[in-house]
Every structure is written in structure tokens, then in C-alpha cells.
């Protein structure tokens, strides 16, 4: 469904992503992990057209190379950001509506917006200014806006960051429902390894923009090179 081939991104002398290839199958929950600065968010910025790149990314056989971000969204790839992004000038309902109005190829659909507000439990907050929401509310709204585009692939960038154990459980359940009930393929960047093991079907580990492992999450996290380069002592202590 989504295929990245020999993806490379350089910022001057810095190689942020280096000859990276991976493929995501329809219906999968695909995880990406790696230490800080590994190039995980950069990969998202390449897929969503924020940065240009060398190599190729195809979505259902269509090359995304040179395609502007709004076209990629309309094609069916939507995303969230590590630092929750909302529209402080708009209400919660309008924020979700942005995705429906501009990202859904069928145009604004009030029923879709309504069902997303209900799905996320944001019905009662619909008239709030988005900046009045708490962190979890902002994350849900960001996901809601992305879902309103009716994506086929949803890229989640560290959705658990800053969340407590209860919120993490809620978000994991939400991601599962988006994947199973809505049939949306998920790619998730996350630091919490236990979340990735529990949630994902396939896991990619990168370091300094280079792939060091890819495969079944339970197997990948046991590889010595992964433990050494990313998981380190913290993971060893955890287990």
C-alpha cells in the first residue's frame, strides 16, 4: 500500500534519513521507533510532502515525489504531530470540520464530523475554543481532524507523549478502534516500547536515519543490535 524505496534526506551535511526502504501493508499497524534524532519525524515529513527527498515513496502505486502536502492529504494520507497542533482561532467542531472540508475528496460532510466528535467523545466540547482543551483533548482533536479527511493511512507521531498510564490505555484503545472499526492503516512513531509491542503488527527500528531492524515487534526488540543502539539499559531494567 505505502512503499518507501531508498529514501534519503539531507540537511546540508547532515544526513537525516539514509537509504531507508520499508513497506506498509493495508490494514496494518506499523510502528517506527528509534532514539531521539533518529529521523522518525523526518520520515513523516517526507511521506506527507513537507520536505522533498531522494528515492521514492509510492501510495497504491502513485509516486508522492514532488506532490504538495494538501494533495497527499486528499489522496488519503493524514497525520498528527508530536507537539499537538490545533487551530486556536476555531472551535473544536470547526477544527474537525477543516479535515472534512478540505481533505475529504467528497467535500464537507456534517454527518462525518458529527460521528467523529461522537467517536472521540468530544460532542460536549464542540463549541470550545481548541486552545481551551487539555493535552488529551488536543490530541484527540488532532486525530479527529485527521480522521475527518477519511484517510486510508493515518500517521501518528508519538501519540502517547506526555500522557499518564490511564491516558495511554485510552489512546491505545482509540488507535485499535481506528484500525479495526474504521479500517484505517496506521503508522505510529512511539518511544514506549511496550505500547509498540502490544499495538503494532510490524516494527521498524531506525538510528541516524538508517534502518537497523524491521519485523515482528516481539522478535525485533530482542535483537542485540536493537537493544544496544536504542533500548539499552532502560529496556533491560524493564524486563
Amino acid at each position, binding site marked *: 500500500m505505502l512503499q518507501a524505496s531508498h529514501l534519503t534526506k539531507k540537511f546540508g551535511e547532515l544526513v537525516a534519513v539514509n537509504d531507508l526502504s520499508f513497506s506498509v501493508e493495508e490494514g496494518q499497524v506499523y510502528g517506527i521507533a528509534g532514539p531521539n534524532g533518529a529521523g522518525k519525524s523526518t520520515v513523516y515529513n517526507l511521506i506527507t510532502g513537507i520536505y522533498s527527498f531522494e528515492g521514492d515513496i509510492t501510495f497504491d502505486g502513485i509516486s508522492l515525489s514532488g506532490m504538495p502536502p494538501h494533495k497527499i492529504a486528499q489522496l488519503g494520507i493524514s497525520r498528527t504531530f508530536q507537539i499537538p497542533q490545533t487551530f486556536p482561532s476555531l472551535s473544536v467542531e*470547526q477544527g474537525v470540520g477543516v479535515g472534512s472540508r478540505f481533505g475529504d475528496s467528497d467535500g464537507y460532510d456534517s454527518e462525518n464530523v458529527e460521528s467523529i466528535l461522537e467517536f472521540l467523545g468530544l460532542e460536549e466540547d464542540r463549541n470550545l475554543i481548541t486552545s481551551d482543551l487539555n493535552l488529551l483533548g488536543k490530541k484527540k482533536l488532532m486525530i479527529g481532524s*485527521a480522521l475527518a479527511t477519511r484517510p486510508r493511512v493515518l500517521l501518528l507521531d508519538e501519540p502517547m507523549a506526555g500522557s499518564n498510564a490511564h491516558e495511554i490505555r485510552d489512546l491505545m484503545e482509540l488507535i485499535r478502534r481506528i484500525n479495526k472499526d474504521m479500517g484505517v492503516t496506521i503508522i505510529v512513531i512511539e518511544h514506549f516500547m511496550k505500547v509498540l509491542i502490544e499495538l503494532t503488527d510490524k516494527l521498524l527500528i531506525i538510528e541516524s536515519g538508517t534502518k537497523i531492524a524491521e519485523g515482528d515487534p516481539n522478535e525485533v526488540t530482542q535483537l542485540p543490535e536493537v537493544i544496544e543502539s536504542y533500548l539499552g539499559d532502560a529496556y533491560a531494567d524493564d524486563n
Partner: protein
Amino acid sequence: MSMNWKSMSAFIAVIYGIMAIMPLFVGDVDHLMHILIMCLIWAVVASCWDLIMGFAGIFSFGQVAFFVIGAYASAIFSIDFGINPFFAMLLAGTVAGGFGVLVGLPCLRLKGAYVALVTFAVHMILEPFLKSGMGRAIGTGGSMGILTIPPLELFGISFTADNKIAVFYAALVLAVVCSVIIMLVIRSFWGTAFLALKDSEDFAASLGVSGLRYKLAVFALTSFLTGLVGGFYGHYVGMLSTRMLGIDLFVTLMIMLVLGGIGQYPGVILGAIMTVGINENLSALGSYRPMILGAMVVVLVLLLPDGIIGLLRRFAFWKTSAGEKAVTGGVDNN
């Protein structure tokens, strides 16, 4: 958040409704009628500035330049090409809109202060261009300016400076039409796109909002309307010079915007009317006037960051809170 549709319509209706009956009281005072006409003209220019800066978040400082481009273009079309002033105004708006798009193109890759620099550069370049040989060749009159601009004539009425009541009502119609257009844009999906791009451009783009389309559209629309009103101004006063490109008008427009509240449309309309009034009262101060105007910008930004609309909103909130406390006997329910 911006005002809702009903409040916005009511606010505009009340302001322009009051303006509409003003000639009944001051119709025979030539000087006051001129001030009222200028209130309406600057209300449109400042509203356009609010749309691009306050709503779309584009720090465009080229609004005066688009106004002057429109004024000169309409004058040149009517004098050198013999085009009816009404159509010359429409053409001038189109020319200004085209310039807006040309200026908007390099701004697509820029943000914040850099956009302000590029757009203000257009303002700075315009004066030497209009005075240059190239300017004279296209009919700007060089340093002399243009002195014989024909008045607007419609339905057998001549809208000259000697017939200020007619000019006033023509300006009122123009201001109402422009305000309705701006209001419709703000309340439509265009306005949503502008706000979304202003708040978070990357997130908006990831949801399908085209920065290219909507940024160029706001440049085109605001410069078109500003150029149109610039053309109207030229046909009203009958002469043009590059004096308008001085810092005075720029600062005055900025006060209108800040006083009304940036991004608080239609507060800027009230801001424009109040600023024109204040400016007239300060004219006796001569060279100290620009200094006082500059100080006003600083004071307003510090004390009234959301302008009059913000003040009214705070007052309404205070009144509601006070009312609730009165009902609950001042007991904190928490």
C-alpha cells in the same frame, strides 16, 4: 474567535446605518462630509488589511501601495484611454489584484517579518517608480502627479468634490458591498482556510488546505478591493501625488487596525471611523501629529491588544459574571 454571523451583520448594519443618516445633520458642512467620505474609504482599506493580516496571518505591509496602484491605474485608464471612470475603477482593481498576486508569489515561501519586508519593499519602490521616467511614460505625471482626473459619473449624477452628498452615498454603497464581501469570505470555508493556515500551516496542509491557493486568493482579493477603492478616491479628489506613500497614511491605517482589533473584524470599521476623527482633531498639532500617532500605536498595542472589540468583549464578560454573581448572591459555586 471571530464574531458570529449575526453579531457581525448587526455591528456592520448599526455602523453604516448611523453613517447613512449623518448627511441629515452635517450634509451642508463641506469639511465634515469630506471626513465622512474618507472614513468610508479608509474603512474598506483597513478592512482589507485586517483580512490579510488579522485573518490570514500574512504580515502584508503593501496595502497603501495597492491603494495607490489602484488610484493611479484608474486615473490613467480614464485619462489616457478614455475609459468610463466606473469601468476604469474595476480595471484598476484588477490591476491592483494582479500586483497582489505577483507580490504574494514570493511571499509563499516566507513567513512573518520577511513577508512584511517584501511587501513594504513594494511600498518603498512605488514612489520612485511613479516619479521616474518610466512612470511618466505610462502617465503617472512624475513628481507633478495627476491633476485632471475626471469624476465618476453614473445615472446622470456627477460624483465630484462639489457634490459631496452624492459621493458620500456612493462611498457608502462601495463600503457596504466590500464589507459584505469580506464578511462572506470570513464566514465561508475561505475564512476557515485562512484561519487554519494562520494557526498552523503544516497541520492545515496535512488536512488538505492548499497554502498556495488560499494565500494567493487573499492577496488577490484584498488588493483588488483596495485598488478599487483607490480608484474611487482618485476620481473623488481629482488629483493624485505620491504624498500618499509617506509614512503618515501607513501609520494612520495601522492605528485603525489596532484600534479596531487585529483579526476582530468588523471592529476595524469602527477603528477607521474613530481614527479619522482623532486624526482630524490632531491636525492643529502640525509636525507633532505623527509623533502622537506613533505613540498611539504603542499604547494601543499594550493596552488594547484586541482593540475595541476585545474591550467590548471583556465588558460583556464582566457584565455577565457580575450578573451571575448577583443571582447566586456572590457565592462561589465551586
